[in-house]
């Protein structure tokens, strides 16, 4: 009854091309964004901001990037962690070399560095496809991590090998570094993610997104109708790595505060891939849902035994968490291989008819 588009007519081209053609969707999204801006800084505790909301936003940005590459352009990549590391380390180098440079500009430039590296490692995709490509992108992952470990220049010759986010301000408020408040960092991450998500949404419904999907669905056919594989695939790698690079910079500057290469190891590549698959391949909303799922599940799992009064040794609990996490992933793939975004879509379809059966 509530969710119904009857009577909403599209009377202009702009109205026809709107991202959310249904009024209720527009209202819902606007309310959600407003709530995301207002509620957490006022109500959420430091723990919630630091352990749940900020990592959610950072991972959602990385998942968006990988979804553009894997979900839209169909190129399977396991090098996400490496590209995020490029973003993080170049942001660190830029921020420390040019202390007066605006921190947002630093993030954006770090993305450019990651995009350049992404293009370099995307070159094999012209010859290699599928799992061969996935394994080939692992070369990027291992090589980049090794590089950042070996070359001390990247960490400004810090003996510990870690990079630490320096204090930087935006509009007079401290947003990075050890002295910044979680609220400020949360709002910065939210702003970045909102802008990047909007850009991604517009990217995939335009000419570029269509050419990506053509390559994904049948690359030879796409080539015949005039989509250039070289340009399209490399553009997908570049933009995806740009997103991952900014996410990597965010991971260090907004979430962890300081990090070493261990924070970008192969595990994070798999984690982001999980987010994309569980959220839904080829869906912007799915990237957010997947990131929320993967961030929340371990937290729920580690608190659940305590909440129901079960006491177990730490080691046992760790193993138990691993088992349940693995089992849940398999279960989700069986129940809905097209991801949480698909469940959301089904729910919307149901809501349109409710309370009538047909």
């Amino acid at each position, binding site marked *: 009854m509530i969710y119904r588009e009857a009577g909403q007519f599209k009377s202009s081209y702009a109205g026809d091309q709107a991202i959310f053609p249904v009024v209720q969707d527009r209202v819902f999204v606007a309310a959600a964004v407003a709530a995301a801006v207002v509620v957490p800084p006022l109500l959420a505790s430091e723990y919630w901001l630091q352990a749940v909301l900020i990592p959610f936003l950072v991972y959602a940005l990385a998942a968006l990037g990988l979804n553009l590459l*894997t979900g839209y352009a169909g190129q*399977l990549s396991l090098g996400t962690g490496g590209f995020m590391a490029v973003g993080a380390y170049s942001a660190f180098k830029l921020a420390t070399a040019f202390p007066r440079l605006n921190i947002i500009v630093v993030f954006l430039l770090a993305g450019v560095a990651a995009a350049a590296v992404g293009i370099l490692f995307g070159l*094999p995709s012209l*010859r*290699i*496809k*599928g*799992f*061969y490509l996935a*394994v*080939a992108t*692992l*070369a990027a992952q*291992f*090589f980049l*991590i*090794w590089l950042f*470990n*070996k070359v001390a220049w990247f960490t400004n010759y810090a003996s510990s090998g870690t990079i630490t986010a320096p204090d930087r301000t935006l509009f007079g408020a401290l947003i990075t570094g050890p002295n910044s408040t979680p609220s400020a960092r949360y709002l910065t991450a939210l702003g970045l993610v909102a802008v990047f998500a909007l850009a991604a949404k517009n990217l995939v419904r335009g000419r570029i997104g269509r050419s990506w999907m053509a390559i994904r669905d*049948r690359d*030879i*056919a796409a080539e*015949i109708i005039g989509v250039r594989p070289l340009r399209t695939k490399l553009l997908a790698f570049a933009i995806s790595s740009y997103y991952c690079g900014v996410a990597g910079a965010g991971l260090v500057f907004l979430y962890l505060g300081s990090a070493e290469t261990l924070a970008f190891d*192969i595990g994070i590549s*798999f984690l982001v*891939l*999980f987010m994309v*698959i569980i959220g839904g*391949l080829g869906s912007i909303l799915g990237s957010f849902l997947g990131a929320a799922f993967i961030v929340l599940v371990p937290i729920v799992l580690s608190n659940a035994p305590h909440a129901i009064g079960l006491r177990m040794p730490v*080691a*046992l609990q*760790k*193993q*138990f*968490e*691993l*088992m*349940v*996490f*693995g*089992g*849940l*992933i*398999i279960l989700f*793939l*069986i129940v809905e*291989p097209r991801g949480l975004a698909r469940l959301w879509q089904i729910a919307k379809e149901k809501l349109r008819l409710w309370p009538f059966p047909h």
Partner: protein
Amino acid sequence: MLDALHAVLVAPFRDMAGSPAFLVEVLIGGLFAGLMYSLVALGFVLIFKASGVFNFAQGVMVLFAALTLVGLLERGAPVLLALGLTTAVMVALAFAIERLVLRPLVNQEHIILFMATIGLNFFLEGFGEMLWGANVKKLDIGIPDRSFIVRGVQINELELTAAVTAAVLVAVLALFFQRTRIGRALRAVADDHEAALSLGIPLKTIWVVVWSVAGVVAIVAGLMWGAKSGVQFSLSLIALKALPVLILGGFESVAGAIVGGLIIGIGEKLGEVYWGPLVGGAIENWFAYVLALAFLLVRPQGLFGERIIERV
């Protein structure tokens, strides 16, 4: 500039020619390491051939098999009994995987099945450690880890045993695939699922068989790796070592897994010993990948992989 070129292109080869005995030692070390990689890669290939599943959990299956074996040995079971029981456990695991993971996911896209095996990877890791504990364990199968010297070249007894075992295993597998009824069915399924089904070959049974065989291969790999470096969590990471072997040899080829393993093993050792110091060492993590990548640019389907024919 000239100095750098000299250090990369000339000096390593001069070193090689300078002490041939050392070169042979490096080569043999590489060969043995390569065989170990092949053992893991073999498990991947078997499953990929028969069911098209890229089984990321193979590394953890190796760990799981080794953990079970060590656990049984520690509880005083004789070696043969422990081996038999471990085999039974791996077969049971194959049944469970087929029933709980593969059957509900039949006809899904490759990437979904791949992700499911990563889920399986997490599950088995937790399960194995829960059953047998997370400590590093020593696996003693009665082969001393000592070396003898033939014509000035050092040879490790354990590695020699591993090589012989691997050779025997490959021979047995080849016989199994070429000469038995089930082997023929496996090859038929690998060739064309639907044609095999319409001939009355039970696909589900075949999957159980092939996962069981991969489980047995995992036991052998776990035995050898465990005897060499102890049974511990890092054993599951050798899966990452087997991946470049796979893309080099081709996903569908048993011979490719062996030859690819040897090439990667030798290439890695040579790179580490002669070129590694130039860039500060510890390159073995990515050198194999770059080697395989360079190779793929020339031959995208790997050494022995099926030629990719694409039509619109």
